[in-house]
């Protein structure tokens, strides 16, 4: 049966209405996607499969698209180098003369530094490995500032790794696939970076807003910074290492402190990804939350009491390294063994850091706990009250 012959064939709905319904449906989908987006958390789990797919596809395609521009730039650079070789040579000779004196100074300082480190027995952080990557796409809009680099998990890049140019910090990796990484720039509106003023050690949070100069927020005192001060990463929070150069402080026309980024003066087509791992942040939260407390077992009190050297035997539950540290200073101070009077403890253990252990433990053994706990706790308590 032809459509015109059907009972609903003459039913006409204005196409504008159907288009409006489609707009509403598409709008609801967009709102749902926007509400469910967790980009601002900057967690690996929030970087969905769709984004990874786009990055994986976009990296080679953008690389191919950008190649002619890159070749043109390299050609122009080659021509300018060729044309200005003589003046460049004179300039480099002057710089070399200056650098020679700095090199001698640096060698002397390094030897002095090594000696001090040896004297102090200082253990420094190991050198951090770096991966070089080529930037193949660069978004610069007011609502998102990110770059796609052509290096990914296959070369050890992970989410959270800081990204540098040869001049300073660029951003950090927020998404990684096997062959590509997405770098969230310091200027992105979702970027928050703990920094400090190098001159005064004043802490601040570098907050991107989509413009070229991110803001310095949460500065405690306004006099802790002045125009031209060097801004470096503070390392607070363990996301970035301390001391990476970020830029210099500048004041905008509204009187707010901002940072002129050092990376702005560097080329944008190559970056260095620092494979930084903060060892203090390596705790496996999942494993920690799932792990059960070790069982607290105690010996048979009767067996402990009947032995003549029972007082110096700690319960098995207190054999952790922390408790061993508490016991150690007590070892040279043996006390006379009190006589067991009854099976129930007569005295109550003093409030101490061991209270949580006692809370999950079964009732303490009558004699051993009554005797051992005060001995262990009373001299050691000051060490746990923040007065070390």
């Amino acid at each position, binding site marked *: 049966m032809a459509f015109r012959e059907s009972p609903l064939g003459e039913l006409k709905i204005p196409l504008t209405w159907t288009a409006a319904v489609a707009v509403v449906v598409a709008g609801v989908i967009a709102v749902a996607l*926007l509400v*469910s987006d967790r980009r601002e958390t900057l967690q690996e789990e929030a970087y969905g499969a769709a984004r990874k797919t*786009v990055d994986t596809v976009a990296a080679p395609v953008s690389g191919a698209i950008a190649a002619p521009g890159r070749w043109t730039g390299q050609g122009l650079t080659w021509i300018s180098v060729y044309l200005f070789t003589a003046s460049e040579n004179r300039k480099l000779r002057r710089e070399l003369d200056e650098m020679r004196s700095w090199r001698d100074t640096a060698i002397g300082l390094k030897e002095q530094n090594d000696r001090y480190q040896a004297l102090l027995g200082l253990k420094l952080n190991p050198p951090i490995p770096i991966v070089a990557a080529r930037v193949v796409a660069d978004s610069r809009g007011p609502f998102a500032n990110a770059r796609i680099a052509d290096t990914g998990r296959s070369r050890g890049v992970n989410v959270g790794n800081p990204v540098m140019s040869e001049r300073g910090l660029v951003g950090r990796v927020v998404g990684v696939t096997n062959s590509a990484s997405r770098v969230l720039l310091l200027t992105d509106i979702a970027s928050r970076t703990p920094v400090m003023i190098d001159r005064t050690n004043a802490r601040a949070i570098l907050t991107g807003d*989509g413009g070229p100069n991110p803001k310095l927020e949460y500065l405690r005192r306004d006099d802790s910074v002045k125009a031209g001060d060097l801004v470096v990463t503070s390392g607070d929070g363990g996301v970035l290492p301390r001391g990476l150069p970020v830029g210099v402080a500048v004041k905008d026309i509204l009187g707010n402190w901002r940072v002129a980024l050092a990376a702005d003066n560097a080329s944008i087509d190559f970056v260095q990804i620092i494979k930084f791992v903060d060892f203090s942040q390596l705790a496996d939260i999942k494993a920690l939350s799932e792990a059960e407390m070790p069982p607290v077992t105690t010996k048979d009190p009767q067996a402990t009491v009947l032995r003549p050297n029972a007082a110096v035997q700690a319960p098995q539950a207190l054999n952790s390294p922390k408790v061993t540290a508490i016991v150690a200073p007590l070892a040279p101070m043996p006390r006379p063994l009190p006589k067991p009077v009854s099976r129930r403890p007569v005295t109550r253990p003093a409030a101490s850091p061991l209270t949580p252990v006692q809370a999950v433990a079964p009732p303490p053994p009558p004699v051993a706990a009554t005797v051992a706990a005060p001995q262990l706790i009373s001299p050691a308590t000051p060490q746990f009250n923040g007065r070390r």
Partner: protein
Amino acid sequence: MSLSAARPLNPWRWLALPALICIGATMLFAAPLRVFGLQLPEPVFAMVPTFAWAVIRPSVLVPFGVLLLGLFLDSFWGGPTGLWGLSLLAAYATVLLMRNMMSGQSRAMMWAWFAGATGIAMLAGFLFTMLDSLAIPSLVGVLWQFLATVLLFPFADYLVDQFEDADVRFR
């Protein structure tokens, strides 16, 4: 109205091809290049088909095409998912509502309409970003992107010219 006048548009020609060109242009302008120390502008190429599709004719397919373009921009630029989809749909819905007022107007006036639609998309993006990130985006950055996008009107005008008279039912 005779059926001979109702000449359906080929979705590939008026929907898919402009969308693909738009995606290609977006990727091209995302190349990490500097000319005399300045980076390339970053216009919202998706505004061209969004405006033109609404002017050419109402369609059930177009809102979903606009949404897909927006999702591509979010994924490629690294913004919140749905931000540009919603912003472009706001502009599309406005142009669709005002479509009757736009018909038969001069090119300069249409350029002003295009600027208005772009302004609505940018304003929506500004507000949604504020809500999503709880921070105020740079107004200067928004203004630059707005100006760069408004300059794309000739492409939207060309697209409208190509298909406006293709189906006389929607003139």
